[in-house]
């Protein structure tokens, strides 16, 4: 590289010779991070690593080459980055990194703890680490997705330090940094509160306090974990000695809401009230066929059909049910008509007449 003194050129030569070892270090760091995240069950948006390019290293040496005696004095020759969804995951991964690698605390920076009123930039955590047995140190940056977006856009402006930046631009970037920090905190709070909510729901369901639990996607899933439709499905399967194929019941959430189920208690009562007639409907439909495979949605589907017909919903109500389950389709009218005719022979319909 032109313009570099002999000392800097020697470091560059050392870099070229070290490249295979640096590549090995980079891969080892990536594997260690990925394995540790998998073990902890932590989902992140990005794990990446790079070796500083020769051009970038030459630029660094041109600016402050005298500061480094050898290549191993440069702490970011290998760099890794983990980008998280949540700000509290940064802390969890930080403590993971502290256990995985030796940390060079003198050179590591937690910008989140600086918190100077006039500090420029957005908080992030930079660790300088050493992989056990390696002669080179490397840098790990830990950021949230929002921090990463801010840092990437800021980098794109081309300014390397706060001093170079026009005041107005700096003020506006700081405004955004503050806003994103608040957004990060709010995302973390939402996650924590959702986790608490799910735990509370799970406890209420387990204790049978179903009337205290409003019906929504989370609570419905939690309720279904107790498999309240298994008995009915097994009875239906026994009609033709059928195998039961697991099917998602989430499409029924909307149906149950339309049937005025507001709590899990309402759902439980609906099942109890209509399960016998739902079984009779299945027996009437399947009894004359040799269909020996059913889906686990059949029990709830038939309960909804019986409920609609028992409460005066008629063919229009059935057509609406099939529209919700299967998308609007002209054939749903004929299917509703057919289902209505089949059900007409059953006792619960006789009682309605």
């Amino acid at each position, binding site marked *: 590289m032109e313009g570099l003194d002999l000392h800097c050129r020697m470091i560059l030569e050392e870099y070229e010779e070290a490249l295979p070892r640096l590549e090995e270090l980079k891969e080892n760091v990536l594997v260690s991070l990925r394995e540790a995240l998998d073990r902890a069950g932590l989902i992140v948006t990005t794990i990446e690593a790079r070796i500083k390019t020769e051009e970038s290293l030459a630029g660094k040496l041109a600016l402050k080459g005298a500061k480094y005696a050898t290549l191993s004095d440069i702490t970011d020759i290998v760099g890794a980055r983990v980008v998280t969804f949540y700000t509290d995951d940064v802390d969890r991964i930080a403590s993971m990194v502290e256990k995985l690698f030796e940390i060079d605390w003198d050179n590591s920076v937690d910008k989140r703890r600086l918190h100077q009123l006039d500090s420029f930039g957005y908080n992030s955590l930079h660790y300088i680490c050493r992989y056990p047995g390696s002669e080179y140190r490397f840098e790990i940056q830990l950021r949230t997705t929002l921090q990463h977006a801010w840092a990437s856009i800021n980098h794109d402006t081309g300014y390397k330090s706060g001093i170079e930046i026009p005041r107005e631009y700096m003020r506006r970037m700081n405004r955004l940094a503050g806003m994103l920090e608040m957004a990060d905190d709010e995302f973390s709070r939402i996650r924590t509160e959702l986790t608490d909510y799910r735990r509370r729901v799970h406890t209420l369901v387990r204790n049978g306090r179903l009337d205290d639990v409003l019906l929504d996607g989370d609570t419905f899933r939690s309720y279904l974990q107790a498999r309240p439709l298994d008995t009915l499905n097994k009875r239906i399967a026994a009609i033709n000695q*059928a195998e039961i*194929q697991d*099917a*998602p*019941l989430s*499409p*029924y959430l909307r149906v149950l809401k339309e049937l005025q189920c507001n709590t899990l208690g309402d759902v439980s009562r609906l099942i109890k009230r209509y399960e016998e007639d739902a079984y009779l409907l*299945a027996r009437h*439909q*399947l009894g004359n*066929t*040799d*269909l*020996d*495979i*059913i*889906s*686990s*949605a*059949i*029990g709830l*589907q038939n309960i909804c059909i019986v409920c609609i017909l028992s409460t005066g919903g008629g063919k229009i109500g059935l057509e609406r049910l*099939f529209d919700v*389950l*299967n*998308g609007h*389709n002209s*054939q749903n009218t*004929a*299917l509703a008509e*057919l*289902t209505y005719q089949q059900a007409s022979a059953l006792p619960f319909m006789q009682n309605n007449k």
Partner: protein
Amino acid sequence: MTTTIHENGNQLIAAFAGRLDTAAAVSTMEAVKPLLEAANKEIILDCSELEYISSSGLRIFLSIRKEAAAHSSKVIVRSINADIRQVFMMTGFISLFEIQ
């Protein structure tokens, strides 16, 4: 019973014609093998010429659905007649497939 498969952009279209019963199941399963290996595709099961489906046929559709999910593909059942729609309803399969 015949099964023909053709590709249209990102779609793999399997057209079934005739009666998909136990007797036809083995040859149909063999015919749909290319669908089981398709990744990131939209798989259309065109039933406009399909007259009848038995449990064996439902199992074939189910195998296609399972493999599609494992290969990030999507399955759409298209143009089923009223009898087959009734079979889908009576077995609860209506919730398992996107039916157009």
